[in-house]
C-alpha cells in the first residue's frame, strides 16, 4: 500500500529525512517512532502530498505522490499533528465542507457524517462550534474528517498527544478497529501506545531509519540475556557469591533492606529454576523471583543514544 524508496528531504543543508526506504502492506498498522525532530512529520507530509521530497520516491495506494498527487490525496485520510480546524465552524458544518472537498454528493455526505459521528463518538457535539470543544473532542473531529471518505490509507501524526488516559484508550480501540479495512500509519513518541496499537514499528532518528520490526523483535534485539529480580533473607555477600557461581550468570548487584537482600541478576539464560533450587538447598527464605523483560523504552533510548543495542552485555547499562 505504501512504498517509500530512498526518500530524502533537505531544508537547505540539513537533512530532515535522509535516504529512508520502507514498505507498509495493506491492512497493517505501522507505528512511526522517533524522538522529536527525527523526521516523522516530514515523512508523513511527503506521503500526504503536502510537500515534495528532495529526492527519492514514494507511492501510496499505487499512485506516485509527486506525479499523481490528486489520486493519492483522494485515497488518504490525514490527521496532522496540530489538528488544525476552523474554530468558527460547527462540527457538522465542518464535516460537510470536508465532505464536499472529498467529492461526496449530498446523500453520500450525510451517510458518511452519520458513520464517522458514530465511530468517533461525536454525537453530542455535532452542532457545537469547534472553538468551544475540548482538545479531546477536537482530535476526534480531526479523526472524523480523516475517515470521512473511507480512505484506503490513514496517516495519523501523533493522534493521541494531549488526550487524557480514557480518551487515549478509546482512540487506541478505534484505531485497532479500523485496521481491518484500512491501512494505518501513525507516528508517535509515546512508546506504550505504539506497542499496544501497532503490529510493526519503524524507528527514525535524525532523519535516518534505525530499526524496523515487530515490538517483540525490537525488544529482543537488546536482550540476548535476561534480568532476574530475587529477594531472599540471607547475608548479602554469601548469597551474591553463590549466585555468581551459577552457570550462565554474568553479573549480580545486591542491596539489603530490613534484613531482606534484593539482587539483580544478569544471566545469559533463564536461571530462575537454579536460583530456586539454590535457595531451597541453602534454606533461604525466598519472597520474590521475577524475570524482567526489556522494554521498548530501553530500546528506544539506546537507539537514540546512538548505541546499537544488539550486542549483549557490553551494550547494556
Amino acid at each position, binding site marked *: 500500500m505504501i512504498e517509500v524508496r530512498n526518500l530524502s528531504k533537505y531544508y537547505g543543508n540539513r537533512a530532515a529525512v535522509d535516504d529512508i526506504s520502507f514498505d507498509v502492506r495493506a491492512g497493517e498498522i505501522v507505528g512511526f517512532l522517533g524522538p522529536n525532530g527525527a523526521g516523522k512529520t516530514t515523512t508523513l507530509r511527503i506521503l500526504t*502530498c*503536502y510537500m515534495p521530497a528532495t529526492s527519492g520516491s514514494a507511492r501510496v495506494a499505487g499512485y506516485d505522490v509527486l506525479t499523481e498527487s*490528486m489520486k493519492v490525496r483522494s485515497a488518504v485520510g*490525514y490527521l496532522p499533528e*496540530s489538528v*488544525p*480546524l476552523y474554530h468558527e*465552524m460547527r462540527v457538522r458544518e465542518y464535516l460537510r465542507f470536508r465532505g*464536499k*472537498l472529498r467529492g461526496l454528493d449530498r446523500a453520500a455526505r450525510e451517510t458518511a457524517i452519520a458513520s464517522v459521528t458514530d465511530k468517533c463518538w461525536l454525537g453530542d457535539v455535532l452542532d457545537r462550534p469547534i472553538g468551544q470543544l475540548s482538545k479531546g473532542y477536537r482530535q476526534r473531529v480531526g479523526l472524523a474528517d480523516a475517515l470521512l471518505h473511507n480512505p484506503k490509507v490513514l496517516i495519523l501524526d501523533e493522534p493521541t498527544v494531549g488526550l487524557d488516559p480514557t480518551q487515549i484508550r478509546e482512540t487506541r480501540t478505534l484505531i485497532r478497529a479500523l485496521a481491518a479495512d484500512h491501512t494505518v500509519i501513525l507516528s508517535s513518541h509515546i512508546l506504550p501506545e505504539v506497542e499496544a496499537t501497532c503490529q510493526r514499528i519503524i524507528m527514525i532518528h535524525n532523519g535516518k531509519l534505525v530499526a524496523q520490526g515487530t515490538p517483540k523483535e525490537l525488544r529482543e534485539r537488546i536482550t540476548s540475556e535476561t534480568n532476574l529480580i530475587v529477594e531472599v533473607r540471607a547475608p548479602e555477600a554469601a548469597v551474591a557469591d553463590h549466585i555468581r557461581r551459577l552457570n550462565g550468570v554474568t553479573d549480580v548487584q545486591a542491596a539489603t533492606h530490613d534484613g531482606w537482600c534484593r539482587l539483580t541478576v544478569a544471566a545469559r539464560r533463564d536461571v530462575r529454576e537454579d536460583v530456586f533450587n539454590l535457595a531451597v538447598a541453602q534454606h533461604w527464605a525466598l519472597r520474590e523471583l521475577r524475570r524482567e523483560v526489556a522494554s521498548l523504552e530501553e530500546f528506544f533510548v539506546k537507539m537514540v543514544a546512538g548505541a546499537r543495542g544488539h550486542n549483549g552485555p557490553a551494550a547494556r547499562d
Partner: protein
Amino acid sequence: MRNIQAVMQRELLALFYSPIGYIVIAGFLLITGVSVWWTDTFAPGKPATLREVFFWTPWILTVIVPAISMRMLSEEYRSGTIETLMTAPLSDFQMVMGKYLAALVFYLVMLATTLLYVVLMGFYGDPDWGATAATYLGLVLIGALFSAFSVFASSLTANQVVAWILGWVPLLLFACLAFFVVRQVEGVWRQVFQQVNVIGRFDDFSKGLITTDGVTFFVGATALFVFLTVKVVESRRWR
C-alpha cells in the same frame, strides 16, 4: 466546479461570522452616507447624479477591500489549516479561486447596499441611467481588481495586519496617487502611470464612458493577481 463553490461558501460563512465583515460593511455605508450628505447631492436644483459621492469611493476602497481579504490566506497559514486544504483533493487554483470569489461576492453585497441612493435619486430626479450603470460597472471592476490584489497580499504573509498593509499601501500608491502624479512625469513613467491610474479610469466610467481599454485593464490585472496568488501558494510547498 464543486470544489471552488465549497471553498467559496465556507469563506463567505467565515466573513459573515467574523466582526470584521460587519465592521467593513458598516464603515463603508457610513462613509458613503456621509459623502451623500456632505456633497449635498440631494439638494434641490442639482443635477441628479451620484458622481460626487462616488468620486471618493475608490480611495476608500483601497483601504477597505484589503480588510475583507486580509485573513483569507494569512489565517490559514497561521492556524495550520492550510495543511488540511493542501492535502485534500483540491487544486491550488481551485482554492484561490474559491477565496477570491468569496471576497468578490462580499464586495458586491456591500456595493449593492448603495443602490438605495440610486433608487432615491430615481424618485426625486431624472438621473442618466446609462451613466449610472457605467459607474457601477466601474465600481465592480475596481472591486474585482482590488480584491484580487488583496487576496494576493494575504497569500504573502501569515499575519493578517501585514496582509492588510501589503494590500492598501501599494493600491494607494499605484492606483490612486498615480492620478496626481501622471501629469508631472514624462516618457515611460507617464505611460506606466497612465495605465495604472485607477482613479482616472474610473473617472471615465463615472461619466458614462465604457472603453475596451478600461475594461481590459481591469480584467487583465485581476487575472494577473489571481495567477500570482496561485503561484505563491504553490511555491509554499517547495520550501
